[in-house]
């Protein structure tokens, strides 16, 4: 690939990182962070985007970034104080910047009108109402006229450059002009790393130079201060060039030397002088501090250097040049390679299990060398698996931060005041899962703002804060990742939901539903239609779509709601390529795996007493309590009810809310670690089943989803609204 194209691609990657830290910094400021370094980081993010964008000629982006950066510069230099509204404006600007980056990357058109509005708002913040920026911009233009360095083309006949400053270009036709240049070094020239010799060499690139050094000002050796060379040269240059070009050569030496340039042609007697020292706006240089170097504190970024930088002057906390920890080395890897590695490791675990099984079948594992070896092998495999999983696992933070913007926009569109609180952003999820979570999460957050939260007026009427809060949190819980979206809004209006469902024929009109069942109606396909279209871009966002998306990830979603107080949506996701500790069981000649984490206790049937209640529901009477019975074979349709073998085993499993159930299986084989193979991609959703695994004998065994099993208990073949949801 063309190196520049590669760098450009990498630039866009860098932009997303910069935009992330920009948003983060602004949110911190919004949250009350007053550390100047935070504002600096915000400034730098925009500054870096501008810098890179300029290199690729992304003018719209550069233009916007420049305006944004200018305002931020005022803030970080303490020339502009900001309030909550200003921070909101900055956040909005960050969003616009993000859009511009995306437009530049995807080569799609930009919304110029919208950007112009934001820019105008930014400029009203500028001290002096934006004029300053124009003036500075003009000043910049002037200073920019001289290209920074000498072009490598030899004897410059640069009449174009001359035209810029309207220099008198009365070049006499035939003779090469001769220039007399008096060059005197001043204190500090050498310290700046500039070498008179090199300067003169550069001059010589314009044309032949003769130099006469006048050392008459040199003090005696005793008094000689090596830092002040006090050397003077009379240089003569024959070149068809311009004064600008000559000044260019000495540009870096500005202020560190005295330069007098006169042009001498054979028939011109009036010299055309310019004195480099008399550059506009250049204040008198304060005396350079003596070596060794001046105190570091004087150069704290927040202080304009033109001020008198006496060490005692008050300054913001200076960045101390501590030996910070070495920057973590990172490597960029193709996701495909990681995926391949992940799959291979999965195979490794299966293979290791198969090996163990074959060896034990041959009765070889009683040999301690072999069994020790196998144990070590298993441990190593587990360690490798953990490491590999960690590679693909990423914090949810960037995903969550994107939600900040969604909330901002949704709140703005619905005229509500909303605050988003993020928790557990460092929680890690497999990268592929994160990507597929983005859409469902966006839907739910928008819904929370649009339907969950009330308008500020309504909230105040109910005695609530006008600003609604949405908590977005991620945690690891019993081997799964749980993401919760909790709002403190009005909760689900159950009457309305029920009547809508009834009017759509989703539920029989005489049905009596529990609160939880009504809540789950939201997930039914066909529940949301035109009547539910919200203000948000006219889209009716169906929760059934969200639910299917979550299920396709092998996850679950559930709702809890309290009228008047708010609702909480919980998403529970598996950690992909996980190793599950499971109990291998058999039911009706099918081998299956029950996650160990959901088994509370095991009993033989003899110990457990089965009783049948009135409606035919069976319960297990144990230790004085009655626990509902789930005949796994019946639940899965393998067998007719009431044909439980005598030596069956009862596993006490619990749902997420802790209610125990008694799961009856035929036999327990062993406790084992198994590799989870998802079914979602290869087949789809199977009721009561979480995933599959490959056992030591190469056969596929299904892994139970106890929670789903319990949820569907009792009505496996009646796809009513009630059992389908959840």
């Amino acid at each position: 690939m063309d190196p520049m194209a590669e760098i450009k691609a990498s630039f866009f990657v860098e932009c997303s990182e910069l935009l992330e830290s920009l948003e983060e910094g602004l949110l911190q400021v919004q949250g009350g962070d007053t550390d100047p370094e935070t504002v600096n980081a915000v400034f730098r993010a925009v500054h870096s985007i501008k810098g890179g964008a300029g290199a690729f000629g992304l003018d719209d982006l550069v233009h916007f970034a420049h305006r944004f950066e200018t305002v931020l510069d005022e803030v970080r230099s303490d020339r502009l104080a900001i309030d909550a509204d200003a921070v909101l404006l900055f956040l909005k600007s960050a969003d616009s910047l993000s859009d511009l980056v995306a437009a530049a990357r995807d080569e799609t058109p930009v919304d110029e009108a919208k950007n112009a509005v934001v820019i105008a708002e930014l400029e009203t913040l500028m001290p002096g109402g934006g004029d300053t920026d124009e003036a500075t911009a003009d000043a910049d233009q002037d200073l920019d006229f001289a290209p920074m360095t000498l072009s490598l083309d030899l004897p410059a006949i640069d009449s174009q450059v001359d035209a810029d400053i309207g220099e008198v270009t009365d070049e006499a036709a035939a003779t090469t002009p001769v220039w007399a240049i008096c060059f005197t070094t001043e204190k500090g020239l050498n310290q700046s790393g500039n070498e008179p010799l090199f300067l003169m060499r550069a001059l010589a690139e314009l044309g032949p130079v003769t130099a006469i050094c006048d050392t008459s000002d040199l003090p005696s050796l005793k008094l000689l201060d090596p830092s002040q060379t006090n050397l003077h040269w009379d240089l003569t240059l024959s070149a068809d060039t311009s004064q600008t070009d000559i000044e260019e050569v000495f540009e870096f030496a500005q202020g560190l030397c005295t330069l007098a340039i006169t042009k001498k042609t054979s028939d011109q007697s009036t010299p055309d002088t310019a004195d480099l020292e008399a550059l506009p706006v250049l204040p008198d240089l304060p005396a350079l501090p003596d070596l060794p170097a001046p105190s570091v504190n004087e150069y704290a970024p927040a202080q304009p250097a033109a001020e008198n930088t006496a060490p005692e002057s008050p300054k913001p906390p200076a960045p101390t040049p501590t030996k910070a920890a070495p920057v973590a080395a990172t490597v960029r890897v193709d996701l495909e390679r990681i995926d391949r590695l992940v799959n291979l490791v999965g195979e490794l675990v299966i293979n290791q299990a198969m090996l163990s099984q074959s060896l034990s079948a041959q009765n070889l594992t009683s040999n301690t060398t072999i069994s020790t070896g196998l144990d070590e092998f298993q441990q190593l495999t587990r360690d490798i698996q953990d490491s590999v999983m960690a590679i693909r696992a990423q914090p949810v933070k960037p995903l969550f931060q994107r939600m900040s913007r969604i909330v901002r926009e949704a709140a703005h569109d619905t005229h509500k005041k909303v605050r988003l609180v993020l928790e557990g952003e460092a929680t890690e999820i497999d990268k592929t899962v994160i990507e597929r979570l983005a859409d469902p999460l966006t839907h739910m957050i928008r819904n929370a703002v649009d339907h969950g939260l009330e308008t500020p007026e309504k909230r105040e009427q109910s005695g609530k804060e006008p600003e609604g809060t949405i908590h977005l949190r991620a945690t690891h819980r019993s081997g799964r990742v749980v993401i919760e979206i909790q709002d403190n809004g009005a909760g689900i209006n159950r009457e309305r939901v029920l009547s809508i469902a009834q009017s759509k024929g989703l539920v029989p009109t005489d049905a009596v539903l529990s609160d939880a069942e009504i809540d789950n109606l939201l997930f039914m396909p066909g529940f949301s239609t035109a009547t539910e279209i919200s203000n948000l871009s006219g889209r009716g966002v169906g929760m059934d779509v969200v639910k299917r998306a979550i299920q396709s990830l092998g996850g679950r979603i559930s709702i809890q709601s309290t009228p008047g107080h708010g609702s909480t949506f919980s998403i529970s996701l598996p950690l992909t390529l996980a190793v599950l500790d499971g109990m291998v069981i058999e039911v009706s000649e099918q081998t299956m795996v029950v996650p160990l984490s959901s088994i509370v206790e095991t009993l033989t049937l003899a110990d457990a007493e089965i009783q049948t209640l009135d409606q035919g529901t069976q319960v297990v009477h144990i230790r004085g309590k009655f626990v509902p019975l789930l005949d796994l074979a019946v639940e899965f349709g393998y067998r007719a009810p009431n044909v439980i073998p005598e030596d069956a085993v009862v596993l006490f499993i619990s749902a997420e809310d802790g209610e125990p159930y008694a799961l009856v299986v035929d036999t327990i084989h062993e406790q084992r670690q198994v590799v989870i193979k998802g079914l979602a991609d290869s087949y789809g959703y199977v009721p009561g089943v979480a995933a599959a695994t490959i056992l030591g004998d190469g056969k596929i065994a299904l892994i139970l989803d106890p929670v789903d099993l319990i949820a569907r208990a009792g009505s496996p073949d009646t796809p009513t609204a009630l059992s389908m949801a959840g």
Partner: protein
Amino acid sequence: MNVLAVDDSRTIRNMVTLALTQAGITSQVAEDGVHGLEVLSQMAPDAIITDINMPRMDGFEFIQEVRKQDAYQGIPILVLTTESAQDMKLRARQAGATGWIVKPFDPAKLVGALRMVTGG
């Protein structure tokens, strides 16, 4: 010629490296002033290019620290920045910079400037 380039933007680092490599100049990069000092201790550059706005230690401080070292008192240091305001140049000068390059930079000019300040 061997050059140390310090800039917190990965894109700029890539571009500087590309420009230098194409001109036959070897280079090493660093992400900020602190990192720059570390890398400096591992190499012996003929010149340094540095950005101004960087986290942990900005360009000005970095230049100062570099100049404190005997070996690098007089090393040519070019400041690479998007700001071209006069007071920026002044600060750069005060910090001990040899010269400056404004971003977006023309690779030929960057190389030209380096050649001039290193005399070859």
